[in-house]
């Protein structure tokens, strides 16, 4: 089952959420990452996400599979935008359903942390002062 997706267009989280729910679900945790208007005190005008698509999809799926194995959850899904995004647009969404909230929270946190650390997606920020650049943070 495909649980990690890249999307070149804005996507609807309500539809994605509905697909995770069934009668066994007591708790649903989600996380959304949005494009901020600043990053480390620099004013950001917009950004672009680029992915190594084949490997990003494989590694994302691996992370979601790990979450399904490690936590007592019912279902999980993550979608990451690629391409050009404006301030205030949704960049990444994680949704996790479970019988109980402990597992839902833990799996949701695991997925976003691992996606940010491992999936080959890169952020290119355009700053308000005209400067721009790729973000290559220190690896963990």
């Amino acid at each position, binding site marked *: 089952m495909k649980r990690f997706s890249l999307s070149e267009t804005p996507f609807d989280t309500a539809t994605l959420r509905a697909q995770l729910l069934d009668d066994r679900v007591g708790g649903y945790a989600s996380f959304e*990452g949005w494009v901020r208007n600043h990053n480390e005190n620099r004013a950001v005008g917009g950004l672009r*996400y*680029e*992915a*190594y698509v*084949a*490997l990003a999809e*494989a*590694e994302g799926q691996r992370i979601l599979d790990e979450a399904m194995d490690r936590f007592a959850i019912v279902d999980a899904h993550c979608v*990451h935008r690629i391409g050009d995004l404006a301030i205030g647009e949704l*960049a*990444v969404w994680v949704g996790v359903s479970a019988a109980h909230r402990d597992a839902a929270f833990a799996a949701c946190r695991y997925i*976003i942390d691992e*996606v*940010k*650390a*491992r*999936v*080959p*997606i*890169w*952020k*290119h920020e355009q700053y308000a002062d005209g400067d721009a*650049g*790729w*973000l*290559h*943070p*220190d*690896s963990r």
Partner: protein
Amino acid sequence: MALITVLYFASLRDAAGVASETVEAGGDLRALYEALRARHGFALPQDRLRVAVDGEFARWDDAVRSGSEIAFIPPVSGG
């Protein structure tokens, strides 16, 4: 020597000026990166990258295989 395709992403692509190129190479993936880094002036040292072969993460001491597609993965910044 093996004929391979190299994929560049993010700052590596900007520095190389191309998204991919075909090169002749021997030795292991570490030696390949060092050669390409010297050619293109990549700022990132090898120990801050990961490497993938044919869409799967690989080890730096894996030998270059003819016909393979090799990608150097700079530190990621999704999310």
